[in-house]
């Protein structure tokens, strides 16, 4: 992995354990952290929390399959993205690029476009191709949440808390219903979504391509 990243022009520091990683993150101030959850010393989620105490650096979490609970915990604790092992090199590089591109500071664009969809956050309008799309208040809130976090994986809980409020964080069926409705309005083929992508067992992500 080090090889792959270096051959793509990144400079990489390799760390063997969680505590060492936290120290290195503080001393070297990297632009991106790739965190493997299978650490020998402490819980990966713990590492993430420690780092998030003082830094907003993008964190990409690596994990094995069937560890959805851990991944969700990490995403809720502030991780930006995740990958399950084994993954393809191309996929890794794409996620790294994506994480570096969508820094919080660049999030002020008022008009955002993805595929043939244009969302104007100030005018609160959504255009698909040339036509305006009519959305309900909730659908719009949902879409704008995706837009503001474009490229990031949003967990069901996070979406529920942001759109419906903390009291609804267990009503996970809401996200499915509204994402379904939203897809019907904005996707070309709702059965093969290209804009709002499902992350199995975890949540959704707005395509960044």
């Amino acid at each position, binding site marked *: 992995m080090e090889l792959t990243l270096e051959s793509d022009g990144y400079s990489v520091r390799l760390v063997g354990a969680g505590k060492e990683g936290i120290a290195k993150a503080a001393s070297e101030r990297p632009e991106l952290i790739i965190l493997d959850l299978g650490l020998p010393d402490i819980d990966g989620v713990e590492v993430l929390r420690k780092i998030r105490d003082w830094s907003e650096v993008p964190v990409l979490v690596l994990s094995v*399959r*069937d560890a*959805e*609970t851990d991944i969700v915990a990490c995403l809720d604790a502030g991780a930006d993205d995740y990958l399950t092992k*084994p993954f393809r090199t191309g996929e890794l590089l794409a996620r790294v690029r994506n994480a570096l591109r969508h820094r919080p500071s660049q999030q002020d664009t008022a008009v955002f476009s993805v595929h043939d969809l244009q969302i104007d956050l100030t005018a609160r309008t959504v255009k698909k191709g040339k036509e305006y799309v*009519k*959305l*309900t*208040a*909730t*659908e*719009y809130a949902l879409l704008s949440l995706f837009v503001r976090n474009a490229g990031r994986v949003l967990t*069901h809980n996070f979406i529920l808390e942001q759109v419906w409020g903390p009291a609804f964080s267990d009503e*996970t*069926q809401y*996200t*499915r*219903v509204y*994402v*379904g409705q939203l897809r019907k309005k904005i996707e070309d083929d*709702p*059965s*093969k*979504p290209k804009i709002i992508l*499902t992350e*199995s*067992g975890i949540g959704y992500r707005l395509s960044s391509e």
Partner: protein
Amino acid sequence: MSEYEDNRPNPDELLKALKKEDERSGKGKLKIFFGMCAGVGKTYAMLSEARDAVAKGVDVVVGYIETHKRMETAELVLGLEVVPRKKVEYRGAELEEMDIDAILARKPKVVLVDELAHTNAPGSRHARRYQDVQEILANGIDVYTTLNVQHLESRADTVAQISGSIVRETVPDSIFDAADEIKIIDISPDELLKRLKEGKVYAAERSRQAVENFFKEGNLSALREMSLRVTAERVDHQIREYRRGQNISSPWKSGQRLVVAISPSPHSVSVIRWARRVSHTMDATWVVVYVDRSDKLSEEQRDQLAKNIKLARELGAEVVTTSGVDIANALIRVAREQNASQILVGKPDRYIFSRAARLIDNLMQRSTDLDIYIVGQEGSRSKRKIQSVIPWPQSSAVQYLTAVLLVLLAAIVSFPFQGYIGYRTVSFILLLVVSLLPLKFGPGPTVLAAAFGALSWDFLFIPPRFTFSIGNLEDTLLAAMFFVVATVTGVLSARVRKREKIIRQREARTSALFGLTKDLSSAHSQDEVITTAVSNIKKYFDADVAFILGDAEGEMANTPHPASSFKPDVKESSVAAWVYWNEKKAGKNTDTLPSAHATYFPMSGPRYPLGVIGVKFPDDAELSNDQESLLENFISQITSAIERELLNDVNRKSIVVAESERLYKTLFDSISHEFRTPIATILGVSENLLGHESEQRTGLREQSVKEIHVAAERLNRLVANLLDMTRLESGMIQPKLDWCDLRDVLNHALKNLERELEGRNVSVDVSDDVPLMKLDFGLVEQALTNLIHNAALHTPSGTGMMIRSYLEEGETCVISVADNGPGLPREDINRVFEKFYRAQNGKSGGTGLGLTIAKGFVEAHHGTITARNRTEGGAEFVIRLPITETVSKDSEETL
């Protein structure tokens, strides 16, 4: 034997061997400072030794010391750690007792407990202090204690005879026998008297009183001799035990057994004590037998019988209760069963005409090869009881009166007819009435009625009438014979009835036990055993039952088993906990914690206590001996049934373990091939790449890398499948259900297989009415991926595939994956979901696990999966998932 004598082990070695044995058992050691009477310095000696031990660094605490205000003793206590005493309220007075819980919590190496024979204040956990000591020992704490010879159960009678005062606080000999060390504290009577006069033993005025009453020199010498003898006997006994333990042939005839007959009489107490002394010196085991003739016992007799049995148990006897009408026969039967050579009975009060005397006669006549001992009664003359030792059923005055009145009625009714039938016929009518009486009455009323019948016949019918004189010899004979026949008939039928009653009782007992055993054997789980046990105890004893089980870690459950018919409150639960930890029964009608409302019995298992059974009788219920032993039988049956179920569980688990081990073996055998194939490819091709670096043509290079990639993908798939399979096999699959849109899941599955499905026409049709479902996204996705991948593997490239989903009867969601390929081999359709099944003509690359995993995951959702060949050609796999919950889509206005 001669070898042994040449090679006599020295006492130190003996002691060492004994010590070792104790350490192995994990129990604390008991050391008794033993003396002839108060004032010899036992407590002093105990404290001195404790101080020595403390100086050596042993952890010693004082549990309870009575200094009797003796200065020297009090000084010795100073500096030792004292566990504070517990204050017990009793009838307004505040008593101080040893705090056993505090001692157990403190867990020292050694605890000092004075006066072993002490009786605790009512409301304490145990009635007696020696029971406290037993519990402390059982918890692995050593105990030093003090004891006088007069408090030893088997010596209490003799002491009473010597000193004239009756000793009430006695300690069972078994405690003394079980002690690890006895230290005898011996001073001469002269010196003791001197110390007494100096006021070192009691305060001055009590001192004088004591000397006059108890501390007479003659008394003291006798007591001293007794204490020395007891100690000597013990040493003797220990050596014998040791020899037996070491299989050294003993010079004594071993295996002697005594059968001791007891009755509900106070005299049995001395018989029991005598038997214990004899058996101890003879080194014989002894069996105490009570023959239950199912006579009705008075309250007093019942108490006495219970006391006798308890005493016998305390003194180390095995107690057998048997039923039978003829006591002599029953005793001989038991003696033969127990292989005993001697029978011991008490001497009867009166010899002539007494039932007990007849017993002795019968024993003498029938016991050919058995020795019979007849033991005299100690101090019996003063309180002789008129009541016979074995009473007949008591008949009330009303019964006597009724019996007589019936005969009188018969006589009066016959009176007017005597002219027609003759006066002799009347005698037969009266005889008939008398012979019918035993059906309702005991032998007493029958005999009285017989006598009354004879007299009234004489008076009213035999001429000269209305006088008792009889005219001729014939009638005199008839009257006499009437009396004899009536009496014999009455008594005989009474006896038959009695025997019948015994048989009925025995039958009832047997059938109760049989019923329980039958029910228990048909119970197939621990829960069923408990339910059966609760209902059986309820049926035969009318009692409520609570089961509190233990677990493999040796912890008792907090709540009773749900099948229990009562729930012990906090206080009762602590009784149950005590029983659990000590594996002894406690509660109502026992010596331990008798204030509880229920009796608790331990269920002892082979490695850890199985639990506790609490039995709560109705408040006024009294248990007869018979019932009590039946209940104990019940409990042991239930315990073994529960143990059986437990072992079955263990067995079942080990079968599962063996099965999964077998599975792993097959798995590894079959999988190693699958692993090696791609690894071989990767190794070979990469070696090629390394070796021919310079002369590589780009075409070859690209080809090689592609091959490596394909092999790696195959490895990856294999590992994923194996992991899934392991999860399934280990039963670890717990679906994390959450709302899922089936369209999403399908999409994902298709995306995973993007490359495998390249160039195929895949149609997806999900009906609009398929709602959100609660599924484990990952599991269903994997199941679908496996199904679709399977279809792709086994059909030629370019074959079309149809995936459809729709609702069936509104409550089942159907997902069908169909293809236009060659279909499934017809003979193997039912085997496709089997582990490691692979189609004969299948392309390589499959593991034979994909469909098995799909099936497992679907079944984890309580769904089903089936395979069939479509009539129009090609295979179809159908998943059916039940819909348990639905979401109502709330509508919202669009902007």
